[in-house]
């Protein structure tokens, strides 16, 4: 029996591996198209950024001689292959990006990769905290609403969900910031209090971090939570109307087992795949909320870079965000295949 069971597990593993490999291969064209679009967009502003870059340098180092000016222009043209055809420029940009060479930020005078290494982890941390918040609030409320369909509590939760969907997140951020600052007397804005700024991670630092980001997490999560409540509620109601639910009751299962073990499990599948759907809005939310609250994540960096046409910085941030989404989608697919055996075979 042990042997045969082993056979079954191996079979499933093989299916999973083929599934993952197939999805990975499928990501390659998507990645290429996305990166090309990003490259195209960051090149859109009509101004000559080489000239601006040299002007920036001149502000720091004093005016250049015209010879030095030409030389700098030439160096930059070399480095970013600007004298080559458009497609080749793109090709070298994306190859360098994949190798980790993301170019230099004109504004900060630093390698983009160094800047990103400092900022991106916080973006991801805040997005994941928001995701956790969204799931842990949205799923239970959605289940509760479906099981109490059309009762007062369901109606209230539905309307509250709609209101959550309808508040612009920058506006909610403003209101919660005022609330936190003047009513709760909590620090607002930034990521850490000064005493923890450069300290190594500790429990105290983590608590300080949470105190700083809770407004952001709640704001980013609000719209998503409302969405999840709707989806979970709708799915669960659909599933509860399926014939197999009646069949399960006919087996004599306790109602709790029917709803929790069977109905809920199936109805949250789309919520897990929905990860691909929630992530873009989480990242959008994270971007604007960080800008509003001045949290040093990738959001404000991107915003600044776009405004100053710091194109290698903005392009790299956009690419990293897109990659983050692609990976999130992949993980969601894998999770779904794990939960729902039907998917593995399609």
């Amino acid at each position: 029996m042990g042997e045969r069971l082993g056979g079954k597990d191996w079979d499933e593993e093989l299916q999973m591996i083929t599934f993952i490999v197939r999805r990975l291969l499928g990501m390659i064209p998507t990645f290429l198209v996305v990166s090309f679009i990003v490259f195209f967009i960051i090149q859109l502003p009509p101004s000559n950024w080489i000239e601006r870059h040299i002007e920036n340098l001149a502000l720091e180092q004093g005016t250049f001689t015209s010879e030095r000016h030409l030389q700098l222009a030439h160096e930059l043209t070399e480095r970013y292959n600007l004298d080559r055809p458009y497609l080749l420029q793109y090709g070298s940009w994306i190859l360098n990006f994949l190798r980790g060479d993301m170019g230099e930020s004109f504004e900060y005078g630093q390698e983009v990769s160094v800047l990103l290494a400092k900022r991106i982890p916080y973006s991801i941390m805040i997005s994941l905290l928001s995701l956790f918040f969204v799931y842990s609030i949205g799923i239970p409320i959605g289940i509760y609403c479906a099981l109490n369909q059309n009762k007062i509590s369901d109606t209230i939760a539905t309307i509250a969900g709609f209101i959550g969907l309808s508040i612009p997140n920058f506006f909610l951020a403003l209101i919660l910031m005022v609330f936190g600052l003047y009513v709760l007397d909590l620090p607002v804005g930034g990521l850490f209090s000064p005493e923890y700024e450069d300290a190594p991670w500790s429990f105290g630092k983590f608590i300080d971090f949470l105190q700083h980001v809770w407004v952001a997490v709640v704001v980013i999560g609000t719209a998503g939570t409302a969405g999840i409540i709707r989806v979970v509620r709708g799915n669960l109601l659909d599933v509860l109307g399926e014939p197999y639910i009646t069949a399960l009751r006919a087996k004599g299962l306790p109602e709790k087992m029917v709803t929790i073990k069977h109905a809920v499990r199936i109805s949250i599948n789309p919520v897990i795949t929905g990860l691909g759907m929630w992530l873009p809005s989480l990242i959008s939310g994270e971007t604007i909320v960080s800008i509003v609250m001045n949290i040093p994540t990738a959001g404000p960096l991107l915003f600044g870079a776009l405004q100053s046409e710091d194109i290698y910085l903005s392009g790299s941030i956009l690419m990293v965000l897109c990659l983050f989404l692609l990976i999130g989608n992949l993980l969601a697919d894998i999770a779904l295949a794990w939960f729902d055996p039907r998917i593995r075979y399609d």
Partner: protein
Amino acid sequence: MTENQEQGRTIGQLIWRRFRKNKLGVVGGLVVALLFFITVIAPFLATMDIVEQSARHILAPPQKIYFQSEEGEWRRPYVYNLIKHRDPDTLRLMYTEDRSQQFPIRFFVKGLEYRILWLISGRTHLLGVDEGCRWNLLGTDPLGRDLYSRILMGSQVSLSVPLVGVSLSILIGTVIGVISGYLGGRVDHYIQRTIEIMMSFPTLPLWLALAAAIPITLPSAYRYLLIVVILSLIDWGGLARVVRGKVLQYRGEDYVLAARMSGCGLFRIIFKHLVPGTLSHLIVCATLSVPGMILAESALSFLGIGITPPLTSWGMLLKDAHKLEVLVYHHWIMIPGFLIIVAVLSFNFLGDGLRDAADPYS
């Protein structure tokens, strides 16, 4: 029996009957209608020029409207002028009423010339006060401009951007969706892949990038148009998918096959037979994508890369609230935020009601 009765009605009548039962949807619809009505007649309702600045009225609070004289007699509503000064200790702006003169609120006063819908021009405004008083019904912004008038005129941008944007999305979405669904095969495959890729972009960063690419020097009206284009460029994918799904469904139906057999041209089939079938879904989809557009425009304008002056919008008005100290002591500048919530909420209710009415099984 009732089945037969229901079959006797048109789809439109059926949807309308089901929609009427949804109270939230009906309320949403009414509020949306009211908002648009107000938007159209905004210049008539506005009391002041929206660009007129006044150093003596920086961040002035809404004036109190009195219905009784100081002696307690009832009389025509009136307001007092406000006088600015600073609190000697905190140096904060303070306003006190100038009780020396009362300014009654009058109806149908002559003022700034305006046009409604490019058609009706006039100088009559619904409300106003006599010369010598600056009446700010909802207070002023940090440049001393009248918030009430700015909110009204801002609504023209805030509510027209989603409307124009969604129309554009419908146009692009329908054309591409019909092509994708009707032609099928390779074309369909590539279009669907493209839409998938578009939908996997983080929308706000992409909007930021595109909006930042619009030259700042561009006139306000062009910028408005480009913002609309940007918003619908990212939005049409969902609509195209709905249309494609419906076209695929209807393509196999007998009446479409019959039309093909009888030699109908491609476009005739599409516009005579396929588009009407998808119309109700299209309307629902469009209504549901309006809230996203309102929110997107307000976010971009809030960040300063959306609409530019002299035009204004609710999101742009909220820019002043970004400074928390301003927000805390001058809470009236949050009013546009609540209007955004009301507008988005109403569209959500309306769209949700329409969706349930058009498709009771989803």
